[in-house]
């Protein structure tokens, strides 16, 4: 590892030193292999203190509500504690006290089990994320596939939740989330294949190493992959521009309709957990993970990584606060007609460039040429394909389309005159 060669326990740039020293100390005094039991506990506590607690509670719950409040010209939570900072704690206490109702006709075992199935994969996802050069829990060779595989499991849990509630709105929500996840999984996996083809590795630390070695982040080399990934993952996560599975104005609360109390709280909390995992994954793959062009020698890499994750999460909040919800058929059509062809185009382009790279003798500098080709190529591809499909930007969005097509105000008492 070129970066971070010190092994001192006090080198807080790499927390794995500290945990290794603690474990070696325990191994000397403790009987048998107690260290193997202590290791996950240390890891869990450390991850909880430096990442889960601040991210989940203060960025996820509090920050999201405050920022959306700000975007929608209202205040957001500001009563509990200074600046309302204790609001997430108060919410959690409230949810714990509330009764978790179960309908009489529901499938009780499955309704109880669905939140459990929903929570477990969220914890597993962080196992392969590299927080620093040596701060990765499980350096799986196929870490990227692991992430895709495990992030497919909560869909199943949401389906179980919707089906077991025995409520037609729940079932609608369950069907919608499954249909949407299957559709958006296709472009998502294709753009991740572009990344794998380009970096020649499927391990997440390996992808970060690739970006460190080439001094360029993948977002610049493959902007199209990044755009497709962002849209697809926000649909997978069921976040607001695409949250048709729990659209309040259409199907009450989707698959969560019959859930209350802490069972609902687990779904809500883990939605944020999955969004954070997706943000962490995206900042690993596209934003260079813990690297920052040499800055990681001075600032702890794990702090840089967490900052990038939160930046990405902010973009999630931003889209949620500004974009209106899409209709389900538009959303499915968008996945199949727009994102999928673009992903295939990107795969073709990136594979050609990779072949060129393998053959050429330009060395590492070729990534800058590829960047210079890919950024305009992506913009042109998006523009042309959108024009081909007939998605035109509204140049002067002064009046709603219905009003414009009806030709202005239509009198109510003469419906035959409407629509010209």
């Amino acid at each position, binding site marked *: 590892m070129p970066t971070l060669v010190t092994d001192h326990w006090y080198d807080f740039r790499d927390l794995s030193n500290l945990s290794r020293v603690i474990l070696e100390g325990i191994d000397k005094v403790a009987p048998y*292999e107690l260290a*193997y039991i202590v290791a996950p506990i240390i890891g869990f506590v450390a991850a909880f203190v430096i990442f889960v607690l601040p991210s989940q509670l203060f960025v996820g719950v509090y920050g999201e509500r405050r920022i959306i409040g700000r975007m929608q010209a209202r205040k957001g939570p500001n009563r509990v504690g200074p600046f309302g900072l204790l609001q997430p704690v108060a919410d959690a206490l409230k949810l714990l006290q509330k009764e978790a109702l179960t309908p009489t006709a529901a499938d009780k075992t*499955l309704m109880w089990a669905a939140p459990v199935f929903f929570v477990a994969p969220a914890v597993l996802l962080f196992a392969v994320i590299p927080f620093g050069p040596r701060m990765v829990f499980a350096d*799986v*060779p*196929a870490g990227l*596939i*692991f992430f*895709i*595989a*495990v992030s*497919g*499991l909560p*869909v*199943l849990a949401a*389906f*179980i939740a919707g*089906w077991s509630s025995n409520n037609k709105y729940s*079932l609608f929500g369950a*069907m919608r989330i*499954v249909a949407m996840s*299957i559709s958006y*999984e296709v472009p998502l996996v294709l753009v991740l294949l572009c990344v794998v083809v380009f970096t020649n590795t*499927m391990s997440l630390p390996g992808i970060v190493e690739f970006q460190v070695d080439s001094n360029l982040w993948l977002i610049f080399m493959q902007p199209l992959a990044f755009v497709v990934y962002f849209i697809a993952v926000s649909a997978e996560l069921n976040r607001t521009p695409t949250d048709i599975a729990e659209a309040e104005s259409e199907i009450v609360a989707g698959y969560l309709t019959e859930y209350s109390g802490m069972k609902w709280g687990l779904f809500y909390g883990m939605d944020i957990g999955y969004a954070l995992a997706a943000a962490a994954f995206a900042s690993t793959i596209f934003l260079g993970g813990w690297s920052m062009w040499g800055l990681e020698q001075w600032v702890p890499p794990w702090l840089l990584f967490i900052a990038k994750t939160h930046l990405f999460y902010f973009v999630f909040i931003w889209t949620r606060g500004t974009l209106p919800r899409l209709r389900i*058929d538009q959303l499915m*059509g968008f996945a199949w007609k727009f994102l999928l062809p673009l992903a295939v185009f990107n795969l073709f382009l990136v594979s050609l460039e990779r072949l060129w790279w393998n053959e050429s003798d330009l060395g590492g500098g070729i990534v800058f040429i590829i960047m210079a080709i890919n950024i305009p190529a992506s913009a042109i591809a998006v523009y042309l394909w959108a024009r081909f499909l*007939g*998605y*035109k930007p*509204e*140049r002067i969005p002064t009046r709603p*389309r219905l009003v414009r*097509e009806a030709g202005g105000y239509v009198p109510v008492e003469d419906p035959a005159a409407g629509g010209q």
Partner: protein
Amino acid sequence: MDNAGVQIAFWVLSILTLVAAGGVMVSRNLLHAVLFLIVAFIGVAGFFVLLSAEFIAMAQIVIYVGAIAVLILFAIVLTPQSIRDNSETAMVGPAILLGVALTAVFLFVIHDTTWATDATDPGLSASDLGRALLSTWVLPFEIASVLLTAALVGAIMLVRSETEESEDVPDADA
């Protein structure tokens, strides 16, 4: 520790997989049966991890748990009869006979196979698999993909109604 851990994991996974597989047969509710089947798939993926075949384990989860199980769930939800009319049938006898015969065949194969493995063999990595699929086995691979595409088109043709409404395409007035 390594050996003990692997032993414990093996027995836990065995019990999990076998209990889930039993649940698939015993449960009357077809949806419960599918969920047991998913647990059994996950248990098998765990065995692949124990055999240090991570890539196959991931593929097992992506394909069987993520895709096939979800499609079976879809099929069950779309056919309401399948959940209700799931009582005794006269086919129990032949089914048991077939099961015994199949078990006998499997036991025979298991008995006949040499299970000694080469400890120095690093196993099949994902990149080896990719190279093999796109060089030696490229023709079967491509034929399989054409077959799947044909099946997809055929399925769409079967369910497509004659009077298909035109889709809501945004008109080009703006």
